[in-house]
């Protein structure tokens, strides 16, 4: 087997900004606050950081402005932009850089303030070569995910009630998270009777929009040994863009069909070994397709799988998003990849909310999705284990 990252790096610090609406701070200040939080969690300082990772939405010039603001002296910098999946990509890239000896302490930050900006969910604002052939038709994030949902329903008989079960499980978990934006449990009927946003998706099929952020600190084994904090081992990583395939796109699957197997292979484990999974949940359909694509059930069987209560912690077959996820807790900056990593770290440290802590959680998966499963997307999967895994 070729050299990989398995065991080459550890997550030593993790921090999620507790606020969900931040009217009084610029994004760079929120980056700084989450960075400081994650470093303090690890028992490290800004002076220890020699690798820095943020996405293309960070203020300023390609991460350089943030390195300047934070006062970092770096041997490695990476501002890979794959939308909401960026932070799961960054975790893999940080582990690779550490494995290659390029840095020892990598800091990954996310901050975003969508509630403070003029609402604009039109992806055409990005001015890609595709926009003249898509955005002119009134595309929206929810509209494009609805395109995928209807096709999945058509091919596999998936129902709105089955999609609603995903929100029900997330809301069940969110009631125990004091920081969650939406803490009220909901029923399938609540989801189905909420207003249609883009038919077939209802309001409660959609994630929240929040200000906020988060950060993780990834370190080498040598650094980890010197820290008192319980670290989490990075076991495997996969990433894959999925394109519109020259007009031959198939909306019933995501890039997880490629990123998942790569991560599992590197970690040397299978879906059946996973105790807890953070699954990107911009919409309920995102979860449904992703759990199929990662191999937690057969393709097309996501509906029956979730309808049986599989996602509910602590005793479902696949406890997921025990912080309430993007559907209920937090989707800072319209980018959910960071919070997916953070809750996986809590589960492996035994620090999730007691009501949803998976007993003896040894292996966790975190999956990020970016862009749109209705057009083109980023996808990244990491497998994480306890320090002694």
């Amino acid at each position, binding site marked *: 087997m070729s050299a990989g990252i398995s065991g080459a790096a550890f997550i030593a610090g993790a921090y999620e900004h507790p606020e969900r609406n931040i009217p009084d701070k610029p994004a760079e200040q929120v980056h700084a606050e989450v960075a400081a939080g994650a470093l303090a969690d690890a028992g490290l300082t800004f002076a220890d950081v020699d690798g820095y990772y943020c996405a293309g939405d960070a203020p300023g010039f390609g991460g350089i402005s943030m390195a300047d603001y934070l006062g970092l002296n770096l041997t490695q910098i990476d501002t890979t932009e794959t939308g909401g999946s960026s932070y799961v990509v960054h975790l893999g890239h940080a582990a690779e850089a550490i494995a290659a000896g390029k840095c020892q302490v990598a800091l990954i930050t996310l901050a975003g303030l969508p509630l403070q900006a003029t609402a604009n969910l039109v992806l055409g604002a990005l001015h890609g070569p595709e926009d*003249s052939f898509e955005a002119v038709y009134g595309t929206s994030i929810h509209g494009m995910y609805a395109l995928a949902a209807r096709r999945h329903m058509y091919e596999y008989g998936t129902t709105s009630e089955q999609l609603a079960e995903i929100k029900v499980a997330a809301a069940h978990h969110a009631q125990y998270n004091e920081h969650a934006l939406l803490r009220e449990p909901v029923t399938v009927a609540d989801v189905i009777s909420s207003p249609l946003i883009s038919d077939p998706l209802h309001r409660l099929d959609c994630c929240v929009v929040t200000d906020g952020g988060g950060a993780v600190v990834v370190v080498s084994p040598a650094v980890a040994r010197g820290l008192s904090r319980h670290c989490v081992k990075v076991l495997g990583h996969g990433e894959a863009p999925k394109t519109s395939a020259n007009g031959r796109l198939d909306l019933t699957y995501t890039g997880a069909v490629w990123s998942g197997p790569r991560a599992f292979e590197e970690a040397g484990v299978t879906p059946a070994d996973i105790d807890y999974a953070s699954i990107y949940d911009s919409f309920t359909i995102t979860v449904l397709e992703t759990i199929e694509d990662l191999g937690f059930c057969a393709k097309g069987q996501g509906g029956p799988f979730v309808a049986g209560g599989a996602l509910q912690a602590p005793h479902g077959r696949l406890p997921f998003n025990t912080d309430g996820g993007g559907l209920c807790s937090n989707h800072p900056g319209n980018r959910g990849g960071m919070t997916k990593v953070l809750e996986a770290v809590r589960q492996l440290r035994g620090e999730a909310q007691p009501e949803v802590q998976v007993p003896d959680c040894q292996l966790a998966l975190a999956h990020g999705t970016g862009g749109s499963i209705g057009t083109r997307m980023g996808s990244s999967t990491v497998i994480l284990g306890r320090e002694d895994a």
Partner: protein
Amino acid sequence: MTAPRLPAPHPAVNPETRPFWDATARGQLLLRRCRSCTTVNWYPRTLCPACGSFDTEWIEASGRGTIYTFAVTRRGAGAYRDATPYVLAYVELAEGPRVMTNIVDCDVGALQIGDRVEVTFHDTGQGAALPRFRPAGR
């Protein structure tokens, strides 16, 4: 040319895509086909993403296809803020590609995946028209 009920925002046009948009103003839907591997590409570009050749040419599409999937958008933004509900869709063209579009002149509640549709053009007022689709054979 059908009078638009939906907004018809003018696309960004560049030298590579100008022939496509100029043709829409004449009521023609062009596609870019590779002379080397014969793949019909979408969205139109000079490079053939199927084989890497730049030896590609414009062809005129039949304008017919079927609905691959659709969504009834009830929350619009930008030019579409007051246009809801409207139908966002992928149409699978007879030539192969699945293209983003709107379904118009239709009974929204009766639409089904697999329905046959044909192209119609909505003038942007600035020298181009948006190819949209309506139920075929009426």
